[in-house]
């Protein structure tokens, strides 16, 4: 079984994020960028499936050359191979442009399964997997918290509003996986060293047969018009209860403000 | 081990064995021929040769030794016999002392003789006690070990 996992290098979500005011893009400092934690679940899922059924795990990413680090991390976890789509013309891609580039590579790989995170930790639109499924003409099974493959059938358990659901489809198919699917492994040092020796297949636009106008900022439909920094810093508001539950109103007001009620 | 090493080891082994044989000859000479000056050299050669043989065998590749297996298979019985043999003469000596204690007390110095009897009694008890404990321990050690895993043992502890 061949599994393609899409991964992304994102700025460490624990560090303050910065946006370039001129380009309206996230400042991506390679030193502070990591393999998207959300993607680790997909890599882990793929590794477990391959451990069970045999096969190959190929991680695919689009990004600057420094995104190779994220791919190495995935390979240190155990992925066999990595493909990095990197081209200056790709900068500024939106979901649509990203999906096109990824689809171009994955189409060539002919995998049995494509596994994606539900959404990336930096942009969290969650649109790429669905677009990718359409572009690759694959059935999509989303929000999986449990996956099983039997023969040519993939079965997925998912939690949706108020219910749990079991979905089934024939391979090839595309999955998106949630954080409860499996605890991602921490790569052993052996894995890290092995990953250093594994090749990263770099692809540029020309090799993918994509037009520069279809991807990158030029191919993006979504455009940022304005960016405003919100000082929605944590208020750290303190209320002292008078002993009769007087603070309840303040709590309710807070709940309303954050739209929980 | 290289070929040279093997040759060297072979030579050491011959030398050690020769030392033991020569040592034994010197001892016989010393005791039977009354040449007591050579006794210490005989003893020295036997010791050195013995050590040499032991070290060479110890550093060598382990190999199956039939007689060792024979000993091992009979180790409980051998242990029992050894225990009995080592204790028997002292038991006889101290038991005899206790038997003749009344007679010894009759010869004057009765206090000292009584003390001697007491010491003999204690020594006898210690010997017999140790004999019993050793026999028990030898039998217990021969029992097969119950296999188990460290983790199981840990749960037991917890």
């Amino acid at each position, binding site marked *: 079984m061949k599994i393609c996992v899409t991964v992304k290098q994102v700025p460490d979500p624990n560090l303050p994020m910065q*946006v370039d005011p001129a380009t309206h893009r996230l400042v991506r400092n390679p030193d502070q960028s990591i393999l998207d934690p959300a993607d680790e679940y997909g890599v882990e899922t793929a590794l477990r499936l391959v451990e069970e059924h045999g096969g190959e795990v190929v991680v695919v990413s689009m990004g600057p050359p420094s995104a190779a680090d994220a791919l190495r991390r995935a390979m240190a976890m155990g992925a066999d191979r990595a493909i990095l789509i990197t081209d200056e013309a790709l900068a500024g891609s939106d979901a649509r442009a990203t999906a096109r580039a990824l689809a171009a590579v994955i189409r060539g790989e002919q995998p049995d399964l494509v596994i994606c995170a539900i959404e990336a930790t930096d942009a969290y639109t969650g649109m790429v997997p669905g677009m990718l499924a359409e572009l690759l003409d694959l059935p999509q099974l989303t929000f999986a918290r449990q996956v099983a493959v039997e023969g040519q059938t993939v079965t997925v358990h998912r939690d949706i509003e108020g219910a749990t659901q079991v979905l089934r489809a024939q391979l090839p198919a595309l999955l998106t996986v949630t954080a409860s699917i499996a605890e991602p492994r921490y790569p052993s040092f052996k894995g890290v060293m092995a990953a250093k020796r594994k090749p990263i297949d770099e692809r540029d636009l020309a090799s993918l047969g994509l037009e520069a106008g279809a991807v990158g900022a030029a191919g993006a439909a979504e455009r940022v018009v304005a960016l405003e920094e919100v000082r929605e810093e944590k208020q750290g508001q303190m209320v002292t209860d008078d002993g009769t539950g007087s603070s309840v109103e303040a709590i309710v007001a807070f709940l309303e403000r954050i739209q929980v009620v | 081990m290289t070929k040279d090493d093997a040759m060297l080891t072979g030579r050491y082994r011959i030398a050690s064995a020769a030392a033991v044989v020569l040592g034994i000859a010197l001892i016989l000479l010393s005791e039977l021929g009354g040449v007591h000056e050579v006794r210490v050299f005989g003893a020295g050669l036997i010791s050195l040769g013995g050590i040499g043989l032991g070290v060479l065998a110890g550093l060598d590749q382990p190999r199956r030794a039939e007689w060792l297996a024979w000993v091992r298979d009979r180790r409980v019985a051998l242990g029992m016999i050894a225990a009995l043999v080592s204790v028997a003469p002292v038991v006889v000596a101290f038991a005899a002392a206790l038997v003749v204690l009344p007679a010894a007390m009759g010869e004057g110095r009765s206090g000292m003789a009584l003390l001697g009897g007491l010491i003999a009694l204690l020594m006898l008890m210690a010997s017999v006690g140790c004999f019993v404990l050793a026999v028990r321990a030898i039998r217990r050690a021969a029992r097969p070990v119950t296999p188990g895993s460290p983790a199981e043992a840990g749960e037991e502890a917890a």
Partner: protein
Amino acid sequence: MATRRVWVWTELTDGAPQRPALELLTAARGLGEAAAVLLAPAGDEAIAALGAHGAAVVYHGDDAIYTQYAVEPQVAALAALIEAEAPDLLLFPSTFTARDVLARLAGRLGAGVIANATSVRFEGDRLLATVPYTGAYVATVTLEGPAPYLVQVRPKAYPVEPVGGQAEVRPVATALDPAACRVQVVETVPQVAEGPNLEEAEVIVAGGRGLGKAENFRLLEELARQLGGAVGASRAVVDAGWVPYSYQIGQTGKTVKPNLYIACGISGAIQHLAGMKGSKHVIAINQDPDAAIFEIADLGVVGDVLTIVPKLTERLAGR
């Protein structure tokens, strides 16, 4: 200029339109002529409800196939409908199925999408949407290229406003090949009322030693039920045997990242913080004004948990 035609993709729960769809109808009315797209077998009440909330038109497809998890038939039908009717804007809520349909539809149409919008408006012909970005920024974004534009809107961004209209029903009769639905639903089991598990809960109510005794944990369970959340605990409470280890949040327990974390009687040792620091919003209730938990709380309440929590539960139940 013709009136803009704004469609709202609609889902039903128990035969009634879901609340997010009704919110989007409010948004759609403000932008032009509102229509609802309802691809599901539905009764008259559902259609009427959509009309009552401002849908001038309801595009209704009632093929039985839609009762399934029918993303592909939906996309096929929507694509055909869009080609035929050429709407200006489609609004989608943020539900699981809406997201699946929207993304796939965008792929089919080769269109861009704005996700997570908190407001949508037009400036001339230009669509503008507000999207929170990385937590520290709010971006105003647009979509380039020809209509229709696809936008996914966050829940509760717009209020539900009944206006008492009546919708015209236009049947959607796209020919659908049952084989086009490649994903089958094997079973759907309604979730038991226990609420979500800790790792996935959007709201967590967690208790510490400040609760005094094991029985008081019940108060947290009631509040959690009211908020649709889960109950967690600090290590001290688990150590004391009040609740099982599966409740433990912290360095040596579970790591959680809910939208809202309500810490009740928890002092906030680093071992606990390590497990819940990723929470988006934190409310802390504690008697001790020096408690470390207040340092990471968005709202700190100095007071008695045993008084405040039941009051809060009662107050929320009354809404």
